[in-house]
């Protein structure tokens, strides 16, 4: 056997790697931005090499099926965790009700250097949602309704939530606390085509006291300020269901010269065009997560534990725990 491979398989090196990994884990607490990923990657790489060398060179490991499975499992977890960090994707997105997921709207992106970027293939349409609240505005279950392609050219409804993600092509979409109301507006310029879009208000009910936003029409320099005066039935002392279908809102428009309150369907003439408040709508903020190794990590981890169990079974099945200290003869002598 190659001498350096034996040295690499050293049990002292294993212990050293474990100590380094413990230090790395301590430094990684709460994911501080100023700590390098190498405080964890370095010890893991060292332990992976040590494990690999031990599997090859140590008969005590490679001739015992359970122990071999355990060590291969550990090595696989190290490798898969590394692949996961190289290929992961993590981001946020806000999607308006009755709008399709738009990859251009994805924000706060963090991704591994080898992430293939197939998010543009994901297609679904956001519909309405409900969120349960208990007294004290404690958020309960979120039920967000989506239209998802059924693979045969049709659509099917899916209901997702905080812990029941929509999974398409490995991308997982989780609802978050970040969601709110939106106003559907149509802007008809004096000359040109009318455009319709949604104006998102701040997260609700987190910012229920400032449901305001502003917008500057195309070709104009005048900013228009909007305030949504909501009637949602919000009661901090009782159970409450946030449901856009049971909510109403008056849109207060202020362009600096005039202040007008619009009901859905009403419009207002402004310099440069006409603005119509079509309807009250909503938006949902999603966390997007992608890691192609998740399934394999789970399998590797379970096989690792299984290997450990097999090893213990093989090692201890002929040794009764009950006979470890007091012998049967002594038991008979008891008072």
């Amino acid at each position: 056997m190659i001498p350096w491979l034996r040295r690499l398989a050293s049990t002292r090196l294993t212990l050293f790697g474990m100590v380094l990994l413990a230090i790395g884990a301590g430094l990684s607490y709460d994911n501080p931005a100023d700590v390098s990923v190498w405080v964890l990657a370095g010890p893991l790489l060292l332990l992976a090499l040590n494990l690999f060398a031990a599997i090859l060179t140590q008969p005590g490991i490679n001739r015992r099926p359970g122990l071999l499975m355990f060590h291969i499992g550990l090595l696989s977890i190290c490798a898969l965790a590394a692949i996961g960090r190289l290929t992961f994707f993590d981001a946020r997105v806000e999607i308006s009700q009755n709008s399709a997921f738009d990859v251009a709207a994805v924000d706060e992106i963090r991704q591994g250097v080898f992430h293939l970027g197939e998010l543009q293939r994901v297609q679904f349409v956001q519909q309405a949602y409900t969120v349960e609240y208990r007294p004290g505005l404690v958020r309960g279950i979120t039920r967000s309704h989506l239209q998802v392609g059924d693979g045969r050219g049709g659509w099917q409804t899916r209901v997702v939530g905080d812990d029941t993600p929509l999974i398409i092509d490995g991308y997982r979409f989780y609802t978050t606390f970040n969601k709110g109301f939106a106003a559907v507006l149509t802007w008809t310029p004096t000359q040109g085509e009318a455009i319709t879009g949604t104006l998102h208000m701040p997260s609700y009910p987190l910012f229920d006291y400032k449901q305001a936003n502003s917008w500057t029409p195309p070709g104009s320099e005048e900013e228009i300020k909007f305030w949504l005066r909501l009637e949602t039935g919000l009661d901090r002392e009782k159970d409450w269901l946030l449901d856009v279908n049971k909510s109403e809102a008056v849109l207060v428009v202020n362009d600096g010269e005039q202040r007008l309150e619009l009901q859905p369907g009403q419009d207002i003439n402004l310099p440069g065009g006409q603005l119509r408040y079509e309807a009250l709508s909503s938006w949902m903020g999603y966390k997007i997560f992608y890691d192609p190794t998740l399934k394999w990590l789970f399998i590797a981890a379970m096989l690792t534990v299984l290997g450990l169990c097999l090893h213990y079974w093989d090692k201890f099945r002929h040794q009764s725990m009950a006979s470890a200290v007091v012998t049967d003869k002594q038991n008979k002598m008891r008072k």
Partner: protein
Amino acid sequence: MNDAITELPWMWAGLFAYAVATLLAFRNVWQIGADDTVAALPSRRGEGKILLAIVIGVLLLTIALAVRWDRLGHGPFVNLYELLMSQLFSLGLIYSIVYWRVPSLRASAVVVLPLIWILGTWILFLEPVDSRFPPTYHNDWLWAHVGFGKIFLSFCLVATGLAGVILLRAIPRFGRCFAHMTDEALDQLAWRFMMLTLVFDSLMLIAGAVWAQDAWGRYWSWDALETSSFMTWLSIGAGIHVRLTYKIPIRLGALVILAIFFLAFTTYFGAPYYSEAAHKGVI
């Protein structure tokens, strides 16, 4: 205190039963020490009484948990009060089973029961505040995570009890009380429980990671509890590695087990002090 907190009398009664079991355990061991017979054995009747007291304590705590569960509509998973209450139940339950099935470790009761009573004393100083079930807790993996965690801590406690006996045997004043055992046998038994601890700690972390992926969209994020539990897992692995590889002295091995238990204990019950919730982002 809220009059509606109907589980309290049951919990106090359960703690009283544990206190009786603790006193009986001390008496049983003390009687061996006082016996002039060389290598006197513990009284089987005395051990039966200890087991009975623990089982009664477990039953009373089961009622306390059931009453609270029924009142709040969810299990004891959320705040520190519930965490301590459910641990008092699960540690007592698993220890009573092990105590019954493995007679050779019964002397460990003089270490294990006082350790359980640390939790018992702690919970007496806590307000039994009601908790609200977070949306992320409606997940089947929570059950697996919590279940494996309870078995893990219980086995770690058993190993700690045996390690404690090894260390007590080294003190001449107490040596006679445990003269019917050998350090070698206690050491083997303690490390066998540490190996089981590693298995269930691993399963707890796996189930927790799957739950975290569903609940918060990530399987690991180095929050307070995750960092601490990884340190615990690593320390158990390192402890077993050292024990098997270097044949360390038995008493040093016992100290290593105590250190691992301390780490596991602070992971369970210390994290709430430096993290707002058991898991960051729980709400």
